[in-house]
């Protein structure tokens, strides 16, 4: 039986650990705004495909005519597998009237994304070490503890985010992709700041704006009295002066001013002034980029992934964060106004199936198609927005950004003979999609054996395919770090120049 609580308890515990390091130590001493030039700026978007996004149901799809075991391996009718011109990638576009037992019609498309972004796409194969969601997710961002347990997000926050207010923001709640690493030597600002509700979160970035309150000057006076006299001298504070909770609280309060003076409550506000969100009545305004992100992610109010993507862009654009983590949910998401009664769901009503990619247990192909479409749409929106933002000197933000589509693991490679509608369990063998001008674009590193559906590896130096070799999580982690220009001195990481655009 479904027992998400047992497992997700661990994931959610992770949210707590996240917060443990988010005191933003030294934020007040750090610069309020990043002034990094294009040369030394890099941004990481970890776009999580939670539940197991299968490469042989997307860019490495196998045509039946290519396989000696076409009926029992997860191959597709030849006509369903699209080849993309001038590219090694394939794509599956599909429509369905249902998703397993769910009467939820859908249309899914991968080919448009591949045609548009193939030059920045790189698929790398990998064989993981766990088919437990939480463990595999964590290993996807630490390379199975490849470098003292540091996550990729923390690496980017440390190297490129020291001037940012919130260098590492994590929104993929309910997953271990947002757990912190285990290297306690990292500065506390590297640890992810959790965001559960992206659209409303900006309201928690200012202590007084939008609140019915006396003159701001009076509030500031009261804060000073509270912090310097009432709190500082109370018996409670003195008795518990060694409390790490109070120390963290003081530190976080000290960070408040930097957040407030940066006016993030405005810069990150997704909503427009409306009857539902009467901003102007409360002295608030939408973000100057509000319309831009709403146009790109029009369902942000009902689809958490779109809301996360919209906020992710604003965090990067405003140089608040160097790393953002967003992703598909394990929770079912239905469109506003959809009804379970009166003939089932209509097309578009089911935005996210329950347990996300993991709904492949019930309906493999439909789930993979629908979920890949969701992930690619979010990536496409972010890429378009970032391409239009100049970082410096004619270099766009996209030129310095990497999207890492992190996934837990692959799915079973076999199917009931000839079946088009089947369920799959977890499989260690799979790989990852990376999209970035920084990676070795328009390449599949490694390959897939059409007779088994298993991916094989590549030479980490040259990128040449090596049937019989399996890529380890640590190698992919190292390749990503390398493409991002992370200083890995002393890390002991392997060298994987094949994953970087310039080798």
């Amino acid at each position, binding site marked *: 039986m479904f027992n998400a609580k047992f497992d997700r308890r661990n994931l959610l515990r992770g949210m707590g650990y996240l917060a443990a390091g988010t005191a933003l130590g030294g934020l007040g001493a750090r610069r309020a705004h990043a002034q990094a030039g294009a040369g030394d700026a890099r941004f990481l978007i970890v776009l999580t495909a939670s539940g197991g996004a299968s490469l042989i149901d997307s860019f490495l799809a196998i045509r039946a005519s290519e396989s000696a075991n076409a009926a029992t391996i997860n191959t597709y009718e030849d006509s369903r597998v699209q080849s993309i011109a001038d590219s090694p990638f394939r794509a599956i576009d599909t429509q369905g009237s249902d998703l397993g037992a769910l009467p939820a019609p859908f249309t899914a498309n991968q080919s448009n994304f591949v045609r548009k972004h193939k030059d920045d796409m790189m698929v790398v194969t990998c064989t993981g070490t766990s088919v437990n969601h*939480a463990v595999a997710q964590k290993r996807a961002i630490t390379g199975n503890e490849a470098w003292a347990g540091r996550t990729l997000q923390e690496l980017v926050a440390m190297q490129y985010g020291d001037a940012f207010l919130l260098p590492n923001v994590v929104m993929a709640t309910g997953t271990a992709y947002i757990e912190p690493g*285990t290297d306690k030597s990292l500065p506390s600002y590297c640890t992810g700041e959790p965001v559960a509700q992206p659209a409303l979160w900006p309201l928690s970035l200012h202590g007084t704006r939008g609140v019915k309150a006396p003159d701001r000057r009076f509030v500031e006076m009261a804060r000073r009295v509270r912090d310097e*006299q*009432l709190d500082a001298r109370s*018996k409670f504070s003195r008795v518990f002066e060694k409390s790490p909770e109070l120390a963290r609280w003081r530190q976080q309060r000290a960070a408040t001013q930097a957040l407030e003076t940066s006016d993030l409550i405005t810069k990150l506000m997704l909503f427009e002034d409306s009857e539902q969100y009467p901003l102007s009545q409360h002295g608030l305004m939408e973000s100057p980029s509000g319309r831009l992100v709403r146009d790109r992610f029009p369902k942000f109010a009902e689809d958490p992934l779109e809301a996360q993507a919209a906020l992710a862009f604003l965090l990067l654009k405003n140089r608040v964060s160097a790393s953002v983590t967003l992703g598909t949910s394990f929770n079912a998401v239905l469109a506003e106004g959809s009804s379970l009664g009166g*003939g*089932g769901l209509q097309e578009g009503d089911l935005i996210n199936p329950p347990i996300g990619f993991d*709904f492949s247990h019930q309906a493999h192909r439909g789930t993979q198609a629908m979920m890949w479409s969701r992930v690619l749409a979010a990536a496409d929106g972010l890429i378009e927005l970032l391409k239009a933002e100049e970082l410096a000197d004619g270099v766009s933000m996209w030129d310095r950004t990497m999207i890492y589509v992190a996934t837990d693991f692959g799915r079973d490679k076999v199917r009931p003979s000839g079946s088009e509608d089947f369920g799959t369990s977890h499989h260690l063998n799979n790989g990852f999609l990376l999209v970035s001008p920084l990676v070795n674009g328009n390449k599949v590193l490694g390959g897939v054996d059409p007779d088994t559906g298993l991916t094989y590896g590549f030479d980490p130096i040259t990128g040449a395919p090596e049937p019989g070799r399996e890529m380890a999580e640590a190698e992919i982690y190292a390749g990503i770090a390398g493409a991002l220009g992370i200083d890995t001195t002393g890390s002991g990481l392997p060298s994987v120049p094949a994953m970087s655009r310039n080798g």
Partner: protein
Amino acid sequence: MSRNPLNVAFALLFVTGCMADNVLKAEPPPDETPPVTMPPPTTNPPPAGDVVVPSNNARLKLKSGQLYAAALASGLELPRAEVCHELGLYDCVDDVHNIALGGIEPYRTGILEPLEETTVTTPIAADRVALAACTTRAERDFADLANAKLFGALVVKDGALEDVSAAPVEATIQRLYQRLVQRDATSDEVAALRDLYTEMAATPSADVAESWAAVSCYAVASTMEALFY
């Protein structure tokens, strides 16, 4: 394919994922609290002779948003539903700052357990709740001081306190402490809030007494003593 809605509900209820098979847990988290650097003290020294013995095992917990809002509602004699609303529409604790204030939200975000530590936004969220509640209390009391719940003892003339050193001011401060932190205010605390009024009164304002009532309440309600237990 059947379009019976029951099928949908059934499938949603009994969807079987891989979770049941998982007996492993995620990599263990750090088993020690990350080091936190104590900001330099910005305090006046405590009164001579006021000696306390610091706890060597100081383990504190932030009140959850629900608990905090209930405490404010009780202390300020406000209906819980009127403690704080963002944009005038959305309950600050239930709808907006729930997670930052230690709540859970399993259905949309998959958050089944409260954060174990405070985040950068937690103090701000707490400030917003306290400020909204205190401002509402002051506003209502000053609209009808004769029937005020908390600030009725104050003697106000032309929007200002008639005498900040008068007994009713101390009585009001004592009520704030009794209502919000369940103890009497010390003489230092009384003096600090009186000094706050003096500082505020030097700034031109039509309703400095009401403003002082609101921000004094906010200052007490958002002390660490009021927020942690």
